[in-house]
């Protein structure tokens, strides 16, 4: 099986979907030029394969990029646009929140907006808070948007292909450190449906619900805890909207314990939503109070020791689990 970073997996998904469907095009800042000329980066080489008509380098204009996707998708094209970093969501947010998410509803179901907005996220690149800020909970709070946040290259490829084929706006968030963490990706073509969570590791003692880069943190903690006789079940949400409540609830009903792990800041983070789902649907199964392990309520700092402090790690997760065992 091929070993790819998440960026390379995304690149493969884009190539396959662009080959399959001439209505798919890619637009964004630097998607066609050398700024991304690195095999680990998602749009590298696409312009050579598909040309400048379908790989559209844009000015530095996030509102126009997102509006391009809204208008073109209403006309039936399948735009995959890139907002270079998740914090720049703010510049595109009127188009995404007030238009992509709402215009189908406002049309009474007459129009649809099959667009994908890819955004790079994640702390750990030393770039500080205006390039690292996980805002998936903002997107999840807007009815009309689907929100996908893969944790492995294989998931990224299969989910992006589904996102491109989805008739709704999909926010697709890629953690940049995962570009540099190769993993197995099936050689044959496949799709992963948007919606179902994936139990990445079965276990009987405690459920950890997580997504994106924190999946790796959960695995490290699981290995350590297994040596101490604690078996963690890892539920990788993969998509926040729609949320696979049943898989979460079934896991908690089995283990009786829940920790939600995400890199985004704590207050108003999506862990609160997962916790509420469990309190409403599986309260009677809980043997102990649930816990959240998240980034602290601070902007992501640039200095390496400060940034390492920000990012949740396996020791924090293990400590939280031990509190409730």
């Amino acid at each position, binding site marked *: 099986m091929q070993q790819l970073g998440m960026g390379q997996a995304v690149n493969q998904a884009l190539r396959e979907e662009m080959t399959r469907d001439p209505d798919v*095009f890619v637009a964004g800042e630097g998607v066609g030029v050398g700024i991304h000329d690195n095999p680990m980066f998602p749009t590298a080489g696409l312009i050579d394969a598909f040309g400048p*008509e379908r790989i*559209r380098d*844009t*000015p530095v*204009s*996030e*509102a*126009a990029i*997102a*509006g*391009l*996707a*809204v*208008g*073109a*998708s*209403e*006309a*039936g*094209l399948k*735009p995959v646009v890139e907002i270079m970093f998740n914090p720049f969501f703010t510049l595109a947010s*009127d*188009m995404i929140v*007030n*238009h992509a998410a709402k*215009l*189908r*509803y*406002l*049309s*009474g*179901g*007459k*129009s*649809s907006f*099959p667009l994908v907005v890819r955004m790079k996220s994640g702390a750990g690149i030393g770039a500080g808070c205006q390039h690292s800020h996980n805002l998936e909970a903002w997107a999840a709070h807007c*009815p*009309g948007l*689907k929100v996908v946040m893969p944790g492995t290259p294989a998931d990224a490829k299969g989910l992006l292909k589904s996102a491109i084929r989805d*008739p*709704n706006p999909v926010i697709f968030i890629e953690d940049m450190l995962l570009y540099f963490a190769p993993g197995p990706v099936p050689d044959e073509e496949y799709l992963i449906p948007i919606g179902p969570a994936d139990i990445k590791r079965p276990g009987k003692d405690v459920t950890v619900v997580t997504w994106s880069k924190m999946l790796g943190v959960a695995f490290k903690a699981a290995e350590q805890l297994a040596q101490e006789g604690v078996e963690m079940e890892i539920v990788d949400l993969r998509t926040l909207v729609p949320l696979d409540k049943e898989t979460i609830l079934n896991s908690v009903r089995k283990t009786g314990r829940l920790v939600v792990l995400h890199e985004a800041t704590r207050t108003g983070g999506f862990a609160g939503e997962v916790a509420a789902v469990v309190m409403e649907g599986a309260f009677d199964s809980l043997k102990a109070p649930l816990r959240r392990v998240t980034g602290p309520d601070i902007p992501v700092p640039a200095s390496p020791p400060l940034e390492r402090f920000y990012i949740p790690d396996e020791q924090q997760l293990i400590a939280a689990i031990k509190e409730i065992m």
Partner: protein
Amino acid sequence: MEIPLAKKMEMLRFLLLARRFEESLTELCKIEGKIPGMMILCTGQEAVGAGVCAALQPTDAIITNHRSHSHLLAKGADPNALMAEIFCKRTGCNKGKSGTLHLAVPEVNAPCTTTVVGGGPPIAVGRAFAQQYRKEQSVTVCFVGDGATNEGSFHEAVNLASVWHLPVIFVCENNMYAGAQRHEEHTKAENIADRAAGYAIPGVVVDGNDTLAVYRSAMEARARALAGEGPTLIEYKTYRWRGHGEADPQIYQPKEEIAAWQARCPIPKLRGDMLADGSISTEALKALEAQIDALVQEAIRFAEESPYPEPHEALEDVFA
């Protein structure tokens, strides 16, 4: 440019229809419980919708804004479905989901009325991109007010349209007020059209109350767009007779100013020209006016007699 008689008749018809449609709304929105939400009208500005849309083909798209009624009617939207939507009824063009502020009529290529000021231009760019991508012989018109040209999204969109030579016409209906601010309070440039220079596209100033001049300028911009020469910014100088919305007491608009612009109403102008050159007879004009009146009365009857949506229908149409 010789304008065919049928085109003149079309423009006169839509001028009269938009005026009569909105005169009814002025009265209806005063009745408690009749029409939910705000009421924002384009009364006095109808020449822009009638003239621009007469220059378009059915495959051309429009993206519109707060003062959308004349644009949508002139693009061919069904007056019954529009009126019912304004009444928020289930038979409305958007099943009661949008109301008067977000009327969407994709079946006539008018997929978006956005009332986020400046929301239209980026979407128009996307619609025009699709036309260019598919090599269609069609254009997209984006109607904005003068206020929208102070939003960043307007500038991002015009720049991108210019760089990519997109077949889009940015129509600025300068009615001299953005909310409660007069033009000189919000924009230093005397003409909105002057801003086109910064994007290296033509900026044209036209009398927005002269329907035939509006039509001619839109035809020129459309031909330019179809020739692959890119966007045009047309500024139509006109005037907002009503307040920002019907609840606005208009204390900041001088009465003499309103009266002076009402004296320049686009309807008598076109009507007079057409009577003078023999395009229409007095009898035919009377018949047309009666027909428009009946059309609007029927739309109101349809809207009033239509049911509201059932509450649970609120949950439908979020996702495809």
